[in-house]
């Protein structure tokens, strides 16, 4: 394949990574922004999303099973996160350091429980449709510009759907934060927890909702990607690492920054993986984090701490 079409394929792979990463990192960023909790267990909620999707599609076969998984997996993961918030984080008064230790514990509990019940195998989840489409390319020939259909230039409809779904969910998340009463209350809590309390905001309930929403976003991202990736009890590590990279680059707690950084890291990950190697992609992303931490510790979009 020529360079142009090859680059287009790599970009598409990168866009899928970016879409899923943006969803996952948005959850991590939201939790950190509003609650100041660094959720080390975030990747496990991603893993639970994939495992639950497998469970649901086993119980209900066909596209309807998958549609059900899209709904059930985020809801269950979110409910579990709410329970963890109320029983663990709240008791630690959301202390930034102690909650790190607590979520590390939560990470191992979720991982081991999954190993004990679901087992060590990687299991596939079938996409609700498996159509492929060929992609066009523009070429300059004797008779001017024309569309061609290079052999091998194509993708699955599912990958395009994943990108579209992630964009839609992120747009909905933005609308929720910017336009609804609950979103307003969350932003006020993020800005000044004590003043929010002084104006009647039930901060603990807001925290529970935020933690649940963050986990649900990770779980949803996993349901979207699991037809491409398979469900495995250790699959939470990569999304956790990448989410942290994205959240640090974008600026802790800044949602727009998180999204821009997810696109940046996702696309470059896809492109570098295709042309060079996935390891190089990870090395460069980690290097970028180091550079950001040295030269712009507040992140590309974060505000400098007062």
């Amino acid at each position, binding site marked *: 394949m020529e360079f142009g079409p090859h680059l287009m394929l790599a970009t598409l792979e990168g866009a899928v990574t970016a879409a899923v990463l943006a969803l996952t990192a948005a959850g991590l960023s939201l939790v950190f922004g509003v609650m100041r909790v660094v959720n080390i267990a975030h990747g496990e909620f991603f893993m639970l999303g994939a495992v639950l999707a497998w469970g649901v599609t086993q119980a209900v076969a066909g596209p309807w099973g998958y549609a059900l998984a899209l709904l059930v997996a985020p809801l269950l993961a979110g409910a579990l996160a709410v329970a963890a918030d109320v029983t663990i984080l709240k008791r630690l008064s959301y202390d930034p350091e102690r909650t790190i230790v607590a979520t590390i514990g939560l990470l191992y509990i979720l991982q081991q429980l999954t190993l004990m019940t679901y087992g060590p195998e990687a299991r596939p989840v079938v996409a609700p449709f498996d159509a492929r489409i060929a992609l066009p390319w523009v070429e300059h020939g004797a008779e001017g510009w024309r569309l061609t259909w290079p052999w091998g230039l194509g993708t699955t409809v599912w990958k395009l759907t994943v990108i579209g779904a992630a964009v839609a969910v992120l747009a909905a998340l933005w609308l929720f934060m910017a336009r609804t009463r609950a979103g307003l209350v969350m932003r006020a809590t993020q800005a000044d927890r004590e003043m929010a309390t002084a104006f009647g*905001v039930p901060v603990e309930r807001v925290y529970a909702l935020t933690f649940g929403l963050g986990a649900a976003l990770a779980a949803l991202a996993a349901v979207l990607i699991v037809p491409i990736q398979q469900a495995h009890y250790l699959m939470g590590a990569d999304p956790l690492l990448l989410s942290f990279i994205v959240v640090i680059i974008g600026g802790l707690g800044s949602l727009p920054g998180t999204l821009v950084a997810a696109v940046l890291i996702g696309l470059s990950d896809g492109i570098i993986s295709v042309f060079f190697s996935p390891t190089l992609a990870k090395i460069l992303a980690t290097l970028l984090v180091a550079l950001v931490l040295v030269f712009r510790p507040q992140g590309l979009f974060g505000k400098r701490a007062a």
Partner: protein
Amino acid sequence: MLRIEGLRAGYGAAEVLHGVSLTVAPGEILCLMGRNGAGKTTLLRAVMGLLRPMGGAVWLGEMRLDARPAHRVAGQGLGYVPQGRRLFAGLSVAENLQIGLMAGGGKARRDEVLDLFPRLRDRLGQRAETLSGGEQQMLALARALCLGPGALLLDEPTEGLQPSMITAIRQVVADQRARGVAVLLVEQRIDAVLPVADRVAFLENGHLAEVMSAGALRADRGRANRYLGV
């Protein structure tokens, strides 16, 4: 009527307020004065429930406030204007007011409040932290008024403002008094207190040292120096 009875509060094991009792009647401005670190802010925070009292009680009318969860205090009609304004940064002026409205008032209340602060009406879409210092203080006051308070707690609302702003804020506070709101106003400077106060209370190391009428203080300004150390 805001009634504070033997209120004790502090941080961790350290008690800062050692049993303070005060009442503020509806339509009265009680000024609370005292040196830096006397415990003025601590008193207001304890009344708001932001600091769990170690003892004593707080009443607003017939409603006991100190036993409630902190987020259920404001809804009883307690408007708080904290020291340093503490607006919700990143939220617009309109959204800051919205948070105040959620605790009490409705759409009509919002218009009423904005009529008091025309400058805010022109800046509804602007982010709170981009306002000037005086406008920020107006917003902090407007946010508290949005919930239609029966009692208003103000912590040094004129700190660092230019005279025209101080006058404007003072006017709004006096207007609230005229509407029957009980006002507990913390101020540091005696000339900021005398034009508005009905009574003045002096706090010294967490004890209430003296409460006197504004008239008596006007006649004997030197008396205040003992508590303020100027």
